[in-house]
Each structure stands twice: as structure tokens, then as C-alpha cells.
């Protein structure tokens, strides 16, 4: 509410020092829109400037201090008032006083820990943002700048295939196999289904990717299941001894890395659900959890094109499943 004379007398905006060169990533917001935000990784420095612009150049701006915060927080939709901050850094830019003219303040949060990936889900949101505040007697003036954080992993050392024989006594026996248990977000699920016994009339078979978001703890655990993909792998009735191949490209779907018990507040897990449907619309299914991880795209300036492609494939090494800091500027030196 702003009466004449009580309106906001200054504008704040936050500008990053590497705003021109830093990559942006798309992130879906709560209302479903896809926006682009600056992309950061764990350990990277967040630095920039806060511009405080006075609206009425002659008029002084009295304030109780100017500060900038870097915040990482988890927000449960059913409990909006309570934000769980897991990263909270603050830098004071100016002591209480007054501004006689527009001013710019530099800030730097060095090597900031960003342990979790940004996530906007059905019941929970994890976000990182900068917030600049000019403290005032009645109403603070503040501005937020959201950023997106990705957590990266390398090729896991242990990545066994999933292979099982399952069925229903005297009715249907199959052996299914998926080539890995841990897939990166642009990976391909390669596998097959082998029919050992078929005594029902199968109409078709599909693989679904199910995302399960779990919020809350103890008796208040809530699971939200969402079928991200349905991919038909067989149409028609198989016979005993028949083998059906599976080739499912993950890059086409909106997936996040598997997130387990983030700050003890929520989890996001993925399952492959193999579903067979018979002529009477009866469904037979087998659900299996898979782990999804995010592979880094590393392209070093000093490398040739070929070397860059090779490094994208084999960027593994001695640290399996550990997220590492990624700063292409540093690496190129």
C-alpha cells in the first residue's frame, strides 16, 4: 500500500559480475511456466553488485542498514510460513545512515556450499536466491534474484544390471533385464523381456517412468506419484520363448536426479514400472527403482573438438558419485 509520499523511494537491483558469460538453465516454476535462471554449481563463488537507485534524486534516503543475503531454503507447500534454511549467508553493505545519491555496492560470497539441487515439485520447493535489503523504519525495500543449482555426479563405480524372473503361478512367467540400475539424465535404458510362460492373452506391454515425491516424516509421510512417461514396447500377444527389446531414451522426458532424504525433509525417487495388459484390461506389473544422476557437460576451451567429445563420455575417474565444483573459467587456465 503506498500513499502519496509513502511509496518506495528507491529501487534495488542485483547484478552478477559474470552475468554476461554465465550459463542459464531452464527451470519450471510453481505455476508451470519455464523460466531461465543463472546456473551455479556447488563451491562456486557468487559475486556481483547491488545498485540502489534513488527515485527522487534530491531526497535523502534514511535507512537502518543495507545488506545482501545468499539463501538456500526448503519450502513445504502445506506449511508456507516455515522456511527451512540450510544455507544462510549475509554480507553487510552499509551501516545505518542515509543515502544522498544512488549508490552501487560490491559483494562476494566466496566458494559457497550448495549441497542440493534446485527443485520445484508438487508439494515442496527447494530454491537458492540472493536477497538485497535496505532496512527502513516501516517497510524494508528488498529485491530477490533466484538462481538455479545443479548437482553433478560422475559415472558410478558400481552399476549392476537389474535382472529378475517374476510372474504369477501357472499364469505368466517373465524374465526382465535392464542394463543398469543407475542412469544419467540423458542416458538410454536398454533391456529386454523374455517370456518363459504365457497362459493369458496379452494385449500390450509398456514401461512407465514413475516419479515419487515424498514429503514429511514419521506418521505424516505423504507420497505423490506422477507418471512421467508411458512407453509402449510391445503390441500384441507374445509366445513362450519370445524376447522383446527395450530401448528408452531418457533425454526426452522432464527428469531430475534422484534426491534422497534432502535435509531430512523430502525425497524424489524414480521407478520403472513394467506393465502388461491382457484382453480383459487386467494389469500385471513389476516396479523397480532406478537411480538417476546428472552428468556434467564439460567442455574445456583448450581442448580440441574431438577431445571434448571424448571427455564427455569418460569423465569418470576416482571420485564416483561425488558432486564436484565446476568452473570452466578456472579449468581452462
Amino acid at each position: 500500500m503506498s500513499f502519496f509520499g509513502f511509496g518506495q523511494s528507491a529501487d534495488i537491483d542485483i547484478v552478477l559480475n559474470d552475468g554476461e558469460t554465465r550459463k542459464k538453465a531452464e527451470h519450471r516454476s510453481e505455476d508451470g511456466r519455464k523460466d531461465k535462471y543463472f546456473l551455479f554449481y556447488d563451491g562456486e563463488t557468487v559475486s556481483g553488485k547491488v545498485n540502489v537507485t534513488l527515485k527522487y534524486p534530491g531526497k535523502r534516503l534514511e535507512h537502518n542498514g543495507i545488506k545482501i543475503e545468499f539463501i538456500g531454503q526448503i519450502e513445504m507447500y502445506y506449511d508456507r510460513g516455515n522456511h527451512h534454511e540450510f544455507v544462510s549467508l549475509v554480507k553487510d553493505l552499509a551501516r545505518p545512515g542515509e543515502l544522498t545519491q544512488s549508490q552501487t555496492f560490491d559483494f562476494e560470497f566466496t566458494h559457497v556450499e550448495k549441497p542440493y539441487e534446485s527443485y520445484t515439485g508438487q508439494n515442496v520447493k527447494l530454491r537458492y536466491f540472493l536477497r538485497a535489503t535496505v532496512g527502513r523504519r516501516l517497510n524494508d525495500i528488498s529485491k530477490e534474484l533466484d538462481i538455479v543449482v545443479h548437482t553433478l555426479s560422475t559415472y558410478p563405480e558400481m552399476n549392476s544390471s537389474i535382472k529378475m524372473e517374476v510372474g504369477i503361478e501357472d499364469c505368466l512367467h517373465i524374465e526382465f533385464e535392464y542394463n543398469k540400475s543407475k542412469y544419467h539424465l540423458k542416458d538410454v535404458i536398454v533391456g529386454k523381456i523374455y517370456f518363459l510362460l504365457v497362459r493369458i492373452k496379452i494385449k500390450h506391454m509398456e514401461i512407465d517412468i514413475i516419479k515419487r515425491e515424498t514429503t514429511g516424516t514419521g506418521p505424516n509421510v505423504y507420497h505423490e506419484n506422477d507418471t512421467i512417461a508411458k512407453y509402449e514396447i510391445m503390441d500384441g500377444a507374445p509366445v513362450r520363448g519370445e524376447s522383446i527389446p527395450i530401448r528408452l531414451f531418457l533425454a526426452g522426458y522432464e527428469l531430475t536426479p534422484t534426491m534422497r532424504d534432502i535435509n531430512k525433509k523430502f525425497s524424489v525417487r524414480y521407478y520403472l514400472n513394467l506393465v502388461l495388459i491382457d484382453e480383459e484390461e487386467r494389469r500385471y506389473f513389476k516396479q523397480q527403482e532406478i537411480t538417476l544422476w546428472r552428468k556434467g557437460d564439460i567442455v574445456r576451451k583448450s581442448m580440441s573438438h574431438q577431445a571434448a567429445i571424448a571427455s564427455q563420455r569418460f569423465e569418470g575417474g576416482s571420485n564416483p558419485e561425488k558432486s564436484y565444483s565446476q568452473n570452466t573459467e578456472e579449468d581452462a587456465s
Partner: protein
Amino acid sequence: MSDPVVADTRRLNSKPQDLTDAYGPPSNFLEIDVYDPQIVGVGRSRYTTYEVRMRTNLPIFKLKDSCVRRRYSDFEWLKNELERDSKIVVPPLPGKALKRQLPFRSDEGLFDESFIEERRSGLEQFINRIAGHPLAQNERCLHMFLQEETIDRNYIPGKELACPG
């Protein structure tokens, strides 16, 4: 040489059972208790819920120890789902007791202690018979009834393919 006309009644040779086998847990353990009836709600919309606790070591059940609250209509729902989808002959539930829901009774109707006890015992028998049946164990509705906090009536019915026992 044994006489072919007389049946061979010799005892079979078997290893003496060792103590861990004799006193260890059974390999097929499934026990469901229906207990602790509680009356929920007020006035005309009151109903009774029961605690359904399952303890098992069968691999087909995800949780080896689970505890949920169910009411009579939840048991009815389970019976209907199994009758429609599975090939098993579903045992009967204790009666629906419609007469007890009419007013002007000399006892407490649906909330009469001895009636609740009779119903509790019938429900316990019902669920134990069903849960032990391998064909019922394949049904998604049974797992949801026994091991999930709430029953999602809009669920997609299906049979879970399981590892051979």
C-alpha cells in the same frame, strides 16, 4: 528282503533337527491381528475403526511389520476388489448388521460391545485367510489394504508380478 505283500512301514531316515532349526523363526510366517476398536466421529456419522497389524517374513510383502487403521467398509472394498479381479473364492465377511443401524434399539446398536467383538473376530479371520492365499498376494489391492496408510479408491487395479516362491 521285505515281503511285497506287507507295506513298508520303516521310518524314513532323517537328520536330527538342530536347535537353531527347532527354535528359529518359521520360514513362512504371516500373522495379522485385528484389534483396538475405536469409535470415530459424532452422532449419526459415527463408525468403528480397527487396528490391522501384520507381521510377516514373506518376501512378497514390502513391509515386514505394518500397522494401519481400517473400518468395515474398507474390508468390504477389499472383498469386492478380490472377487472381481482374482480367481480365488473369497471367504465371507461378518454380517453387515443393517438392523443394528435402525433407531429405537434396546442396546447400543452398532456400538454394542459384544457386537464389536464378534465383528472384530470375524474380520480377523477373514483377513488372515485371504492374506495367506498366493493369488491374493499378487493383488495390488491387498498390499494397499495392509500396508498403506490410506486406501486410494481411485487406484489402478493390477497384479504384482512376484519372484517365484
